[in-house]
């Protein structure tokens, strides 16, 4: 069962991006959904863009930079498996592995 992110030190923790596909303005790219990476750094809290986009007051959400290997993202077809992609993902999109 997926465990939610806890608000404590999470550096280098393994996390998975949730695979959900809601039809609206979100900032978790599709190519990262369902993929596992590690927390590269915590960035603090920011207004949830999913609420701001529709003209609503936004809850503050924790934001993290998460690092993924190309092998994780693209499998055997990866150009260079050890290269990485870092992306900023909000904590409600992440679950502990």
């Amino acid at each position: 069962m997926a465990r939610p992110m806890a608000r404590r030190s999470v550096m280098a923790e393994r996390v998975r991006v949730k695979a959900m596909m809601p039809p609206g303005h979100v900032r978790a790219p599709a190519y990262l959904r369902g993929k596992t990476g590690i927390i590269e750094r915590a960035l603090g809290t920011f207004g949830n863009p999913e609420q701001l986009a529709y003209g609503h007051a936004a809850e503050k959400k924790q934001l993290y930079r998460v690092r993924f290997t190309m092998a994780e993202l693209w499998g055997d077809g990866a150009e260079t498996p050890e290269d990485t992609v870092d992306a900023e993902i909000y904590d409600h999109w992440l679950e502990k592995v």
Partner: protein
Amino acid sequence: MSDTDGRRWHDMGGQSAGEIPQEGHDFALWEKRVDALMVLCGGKGLFTVDGLRRALEDMGEDAFEKHSYYERWIASVNQNLIEAGTYSLEELGRKMDEVADRGATYGAAQRDG
């Protein structure tokens, strides 16, 4: 019946694509004005960058293929201002016709000629 995997058109990371077009252009005055209105109105709290992005995404892939960057951005700025109630579509429609009546070029269509 149709189906989709749920990926939205603007969410381009990892899709196949060809060579990157490397030509650039210098921004026209009207484009710089669009950019300025976007920054100023956002700064005044009339809309958010998130609302601008959402409107761009909702325009669909066709708009991305057919219209230039700042054509889509003025459309998004307008969409957000309409939603904010800053002006009405009636006011905008009247004003756009008034602009067209002034002259056939961008220069001629300015209020001060």
